[in-house]
């Protein structure tokens, strides 16, 4: 039983990481959005599984949020924006796919090593989860850094959040505070980002950050 439990949790968390890698690899925007939806779905399952395991019903709420909000609502909304801005076919890498993947591998390895090697007396389940979570966070950051497009960056940011939630659910008995705050942050983050994208579109007609950078402070 324990073995199976561990395997499933492991599988789900690993899948989150795998999708992160796929996101890193995928450079077309609409495909990226789909991948992110997948990311969120797997996260939702992982969270749900954890809820089941830890017998913590409140985690189901988090799972639901992940499923409906991040896997459905946000990708759809972003799809609309992307289509409306006519950038859904664009490829916007800064660093090539190869190097990005290599970097990603390295980061994932670092994350795993940090978590697995140095917590010998912690429970194995949480440890693995934490390792995956850390790697996911780092890959999310890498995605933000490696992409030029604001939408990709938003996605990168949200995968960082996903990694965080993975960690939070992995930590046994983490109180409700975290869930509230996560939901809260997703909500606020999205609203504000939406507001900003709206404003930016209103003024710049593009979401390429380089356009924004022309107003870098003192050059004007």
């Amino acid at each position: 039983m324990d073995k199976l439990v561990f395997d499933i949790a492991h599988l789900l968390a690993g899948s989150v990481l795998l999708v992160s890698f796929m996101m890193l690899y995928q450079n077309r925007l609409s495909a990226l959005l789909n991948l992110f939806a997948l990311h969120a779905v797997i996260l939702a399952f992982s969270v749900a599984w954890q809820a089941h395991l830890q017998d913590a019903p409140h985690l189901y709420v988090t799972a639901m949020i992940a499923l409906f909000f991040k896997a459905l609502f946000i990708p759809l909304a972003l799809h609309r924006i992307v289509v409306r801005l006519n950038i859904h076919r664009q490829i916007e890498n800064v660093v090539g796919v190869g190097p990005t993947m290599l970097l990603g591998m390295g980061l994932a390895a670092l994350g795993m090593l940090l978590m697995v090697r140095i917590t010998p007396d912690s429970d194995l389940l949480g440890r693995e989860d934490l390792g995956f979570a850390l790697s996911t966070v780092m890959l999310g950051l890498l995605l933000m850094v490696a992409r030029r497009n604001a939408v990709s960056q938003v996605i990168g940011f949200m995968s960082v959040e996903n990694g965080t939630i993975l960690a939070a659910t992995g930590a046994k008995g983490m109180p409700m505070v975290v869930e509230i705050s996560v939901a809260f942050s997703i909500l606020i983050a999205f609203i504000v980002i939406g507001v900003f994208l709206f404003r930016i579109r209103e003024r710049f007609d593009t979401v390429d950050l380089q356009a924004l950078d022309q107003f870098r402070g003192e050059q004007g």
Partner: protein
Amino acid sequence: MIAVPWDAETLVLLIPLTAAAFLAVLPGYRLTAWLNMLASLLTLVCVLALFILPMPAPTQFLLIDDVNIVFILLNSFVGFTTSVFSASYIGHELHTGRLTPVYLRFYHAMYQVLMFAMNLALVSNNIGLMWVAIELATLTTVLMVGIYRTHQAIEAAWKYFILGSVGIALALFGTILVYKAAQPVVGEGMPGMVWTVLMAHAAKFDPATLNVAFIFLLLGYGTKVGLVPLHAWLPDAHSEGPTPISAVLSGLLLNVALFAVLRFKLLLAANPQAIMPGPLMVMLGLASLLFASLMLYRRRDIKRLFAYSSIEHMGIITFAFGMGGALANFAALLHMTMHSLTKSAIFFAVGHISQVKGTQKIADIRGLTETHPVLGWGLVVGVFAIAGLPPLGIFTSEFLVVTSTFAREPLLAVALVAGLVIALGGLLVHLNGIAFGSPSSGTARSQASYVPLFAHLALVCAAGLYLPPALVSWFRHVAGRLG
């Protein structure tokens, strides 16, 4: 019924929140400005009451102890004086059309929300709650920075938002890791996030988890503190937002974030197997100091100039806290207090200047002591204060930081001193142009009140000459607790 101390503690949070709700709906900028001031004053009074009344016992969410009360008092005091300044300042923005009445209402509401968030972050006894509060403060200031809706303002707000969000995400991850480290020892559930509980059991936590957690927390909250290389949002956010907000950002929000870092530093210090958090802080602090002081030289925008100076000083404070020891901690606390007062005073002055000269460009502000002697000399005194010259308070703290460091780590002290001198050069090269020489146009009198500016400067000057023994023993006590 509810006990009185608890009352004061809650009121510190409730007043701003209620005021924010009122301000969001009330019309008329004069009324709202007054209300804003009143709310800030009431908060300050409550904090003072908190200070006088016996310390309340910590609950699961709230905590008042010797350490955070310093921060809270400073926070509400500068919050209040800034609201006074803001009240006389913001009307001008309405007249020039930079703000509409709706935005002004929004501005006042957000001001109180920000005060609420900062106070919450400071009094929270719960690392989760603290995180939420800092997140809230960040979002509030993002909105305030973008309030002018110019290209630059939006760009600054966007930058702030992205960098702040990433920082906050990192901090959350660090918080989870702390819980993770605590959970096997203190058990599942809420106790794992309660600060007092964490501190009591810190020695038994898994050190490796704590280490990774601290790195995330340091970088996460360090982003808010404006430590190099996480500082990028800070100069732009300061320069594009309304000046009172710049004052609050520099004077208060940075402290609040630093307070968060400090708390976790204490946690790590309580665990003998964990890494020493000091060296990391020293490194980042020194990097900030040196980097920011070199950045001062090529500045063209006056508010951005002082924003970099804030980075520099947060660097010094972080450095001193990182060095640790009673003397350095005392110096850091003193420096933080003085910096808050001085930097907000400088931003007040800058607000006046940009109003009378109609520009923030350094090159267009000339000969200020000629056209506006009071304002000009006020700025000169402020800059000297921030540069650490006597008889102003920062001299005392810098004296202590440098001398206490040199006896322990001579090379670090040399680097520190080099940074200070470079910074002075950077500030002075601009000050010379701004304050002296043939004046540029713009001889209108400033509409806003000089009282907050000179009140702060007087306090800083008084502190440079005389520190009340009560204050000092209190600070020393706190410094001792900070390890």
